[in-house]
């Protein structure tokens, strides 16, 4: 597909960073395309993220990530409100077991106060016991930061891209970039697995593959070393075990293994932090699980492996130097947004604004689009509605009275809505609606979800996948005895 005129901007990568940039650019009168290699946005590192909006005090202002962290933090209330995904400032506690760690808490507190992070407080054991009774009694102090929050990172991606698309951004999925070249007219031409695309500006937001994309462009001056994090999700029964995100004292390369009360009310424990050479290595390991549970039990003794309902792994796109790499390159119009590891999710809104400023500095005209609509129609969440509204809604459209996922009480209406919003796969439905995310892990609802995808998209059941590519779920009998 070659277009006569190059677009204004192509964003390579539909993780939370690419999606946030797409949405930010959709405020202006621009022709923008986002290219994603997976079948849906957010299906790489973003969906495996811990889902924490960091309080703002963790990283030093000597670093770019330290500066963008607090700016980003403050933007989330409005974005969540506009795009209708869950976000809650639950607060965090960083716990200390001995005096040396107490020193670290003091240092991080001072660092945060220097940045203007409000209401940081060191709690004594009595206060900890009162607020978080499940924590180990060996904890001698904790740094409380009320500005920390939790968000479902995939929902954030969907909200951002849905809004960007409504405001005119184009998107292609299951498409990989294979070449980058400047043409004679000063545009950059991307050769992809599905044809050529050209633009005056290209944003490299390719996550763990960003160094490769930069190398294709001839500006490969950095290397991404993926750092794998394994996460373990616990049964909903443990809801309320902790009210805040619980951090151990950090080490130079990691924030440590956390206990996270997710936005959905489940408890998640993790992540590990181990470098890997393999950029597709999303395996969980026996050693990783042991490490997570051993570490977490020290902080919250009530956590047990037996409560685990699911596990997964993600790859942090860490660059040498441990900082973000954001800026123009020697190839005119090619902008790197790379090395986005923690607190990348937190910083995403600030990164998107920074990239917009860079594009402007590089010569992209930014004319506000008067037709920009900052909100999307919020998805209906039947389970969270009051009874009268449920009765009214189901009376009007029975599909909202028909429960498909019985662990999370998701209705057929919500599943169909998610398909109409762009869910292509079982994972797409799961991450948009939570159907299949509960304790039975899709045992009951996946068949109905497959039928609904087949029905809405007019495809046979055998072509429905878990997450695109070769992730087929069922096959035909030799005699074709199904429907």
């Amino acid at each position, binding site marked *: 597909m070659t277009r006569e005129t190059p677009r204004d901007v192509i964003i390579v990568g539909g993780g939370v960073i690419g999606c946030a940039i797409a949405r930010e650019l959709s405020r202006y009168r621009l022709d923008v395309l986002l290219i994603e290699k997976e079948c849906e946005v957010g299906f790489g590192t973003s969906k495996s993220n811990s889902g924490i909006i960091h309080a703002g005090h963790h990283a030093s202002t000597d670093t770019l990530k330290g500066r963008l962290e607090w700016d980003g933090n403050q933007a989330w209330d409005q974005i969540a409100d506009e795009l209708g995904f869950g976000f809650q400032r639950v607060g965090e506690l960083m716990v200390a077991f001995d005096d040396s760690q107490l020193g670290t808490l003091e240092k991080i507190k001072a660092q945060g106060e220097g940045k203007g992070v409000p209401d940081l407080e060191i709690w004594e054991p009595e206060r900890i016991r009162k607020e978080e009774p499940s924590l180990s009694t060996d904890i001698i102090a904790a740094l409380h930061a009320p500005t920390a929050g939790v968000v479902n990172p995939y929902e954030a991606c969907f909200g951002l891209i849905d809004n960007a698309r409504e405001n005119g951004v184009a998107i292609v999925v299951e498409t990989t970039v294979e070449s980058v070249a400047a043409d004679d007219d000063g545009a950059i031409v991307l050769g992809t697995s599905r044809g050529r695309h050209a633009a005056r500006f290209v944003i490299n937001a390719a996550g763990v593959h960003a160094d490769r994309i930069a190398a294709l462009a001839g500006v490969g001056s950095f290397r991404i070393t993926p750092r794998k994090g394994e996460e373990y999700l616990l049964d909903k029964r443990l809801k309320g075990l902790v009210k805040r995100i619980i951090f151990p004292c950090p080490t130079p390369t990691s924030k440590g293994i956390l206990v996270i009360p997710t936005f959905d009310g489940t408890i998640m424990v993790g992540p590990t932090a181990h470098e890997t050479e393999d950029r597709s290595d999303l395996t969980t390991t*026996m050693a990783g699980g042991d490490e997570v549970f051993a570490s977490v039990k020290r902080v919250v003794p009530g956590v047990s492996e037996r409560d685990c*309902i699911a596990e997964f792994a993600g790859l942090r796109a860490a660059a040498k130097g441990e900082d973000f790499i954001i800026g123009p390159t020697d190839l005119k119009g090619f902008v790197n947004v790379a090395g986005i590891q923690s607190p990348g999710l937190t910083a995403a809104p600030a990164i998107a604004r920074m990239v917009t400023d860079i594009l402007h500095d590089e010569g992209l005209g930014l004319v506000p689009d008067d037709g920009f609509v900052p909100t999307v129609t919020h998805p209906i969440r039947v389970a969270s509605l009051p009874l009268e509204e449920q009765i009214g809604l189901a009376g009007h459209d029975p599909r909202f009275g028909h429960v498909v996922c019985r662990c999370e009480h998701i209705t057929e209406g919500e599943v169909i809505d998610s398909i109409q919003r762009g869910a292509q796969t079982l994972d797409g439905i799961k991450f948009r609606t939570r159907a299949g995310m509960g304790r039975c*892990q899709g045992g009951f609802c996946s068949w109905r979800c497959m039928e609904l995808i087949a029905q809405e998209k007019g495809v046979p059941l055998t072509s429905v996948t878990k997450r695109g590519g070769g992730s087929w779920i069922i096959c035909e009998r030799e005699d074709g005895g199904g429907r």
Partner: protein
Amino acid sequence: MITGRPARIRTRYDVAVVGGGPAGMAAALGARESGAESILVIDREREAGGILWQCIHSGFGLHHFKEELTGPEYAQRYLEEMLEAGVDLLTDSFVADIDRDRRLKVMTGARGVHVVEAGAVALAMGARERTRGAIRIPGTRPSGVMTAGLAQKIVNMHGYLPGRRAVILGSGDIGLIMARRLTLEGVEVMGVFEIMPHANGLNRNIVQCLHDFDIPLYLSTTVAEIHGRDRVEKVTVAPVDENFRPILGKAWDIDCDTLLLSIGLIPENELSRQLNLSIDQVTGGPVVDSRMETSKSGVFAGGNVVHIHDLVDFVSQESLLAGRGAGAYLSGGRPPPDNIRVIPGENVAYCVPHSIASERPHTIYMRVRRPLEKCLIRFGEVLEKKLSYVFPAEMVSLKVRPELLEKFHGDALKVDILPRA
């Protein structure tokens, strides 16, 4: 044909039964027997009958109907009996909520959301299958990892196959049965792997589902890792040490596109938790008295929601009691409460019911922790009986007649299963 579909969903029923599988159908019949006039059964599937419809093999009904039936035949008979008894049946419907006053929020799909008040409730939600997350198998997360029960439904009702080349983890009966089903439908089954040193299913199934088709069974062996990015490509299997950890030095790989899990069932107790019922930590189900009443007055439970059974006949028996209890709760014709607690002792993991009454006959169900041959069961000081064998996979039942308890004046009896001296 009677469908049981009510012309109008009432706002109040004498008895509401949550779940229309074997437990729910028996509970509805029990409620009718003991005098309940209006009975509502709510089931989330397209038809009542539960898992029986997909269990197309035979081996059901030997105790209850005194003949060997297939699952569908057992369901068909029960369903007809229930519908002829004149109960209201809501299918494709889901109880999202029960409150303290026994008001049920029922989401019925086509017929909207209703609040139904019940004089008494029988919980019959059954069980769900344990999934990959529960046993933490390392590796990637491709498609093609599926519980055996879901695969059974896909093959036997929907008419598709879960893959072309399968490995089965867990030697429970569903896993064994699926090994045969898949083979007969043209799927290559590479083997059944069991982490325990003994099989979890019936010998009959080991012979007729595995030996008949030359499918190997590997004991003390587990799946140590799953490979494949999009779809399962292979699994690594390995023998386990005495702590059930895989010995990776002895591992080998098997090419396959499907891994079926038959690793156990868990009572489905979301609603029981909402009602804040006392839960037995061993069974994972509610604590019940001898009439199958839970810790909340007017709420009864029976079948797999209380504890996992190996035979549907016992599910029916136990749930009939639960239904009778629910029906009698309304009429006020309730027998005196239980006076003796039943306590699991040596080599007994749990007992159901958790208490009995000395003036009535009872059947106490239990599971042992360890297999024993030539052993005896001792019920406090009132009863001692020889057993030729016990296995964890086979439920033990103990019948207690009131005569035995005439001279007993305590408030608790312990059950031990011991080697014979």
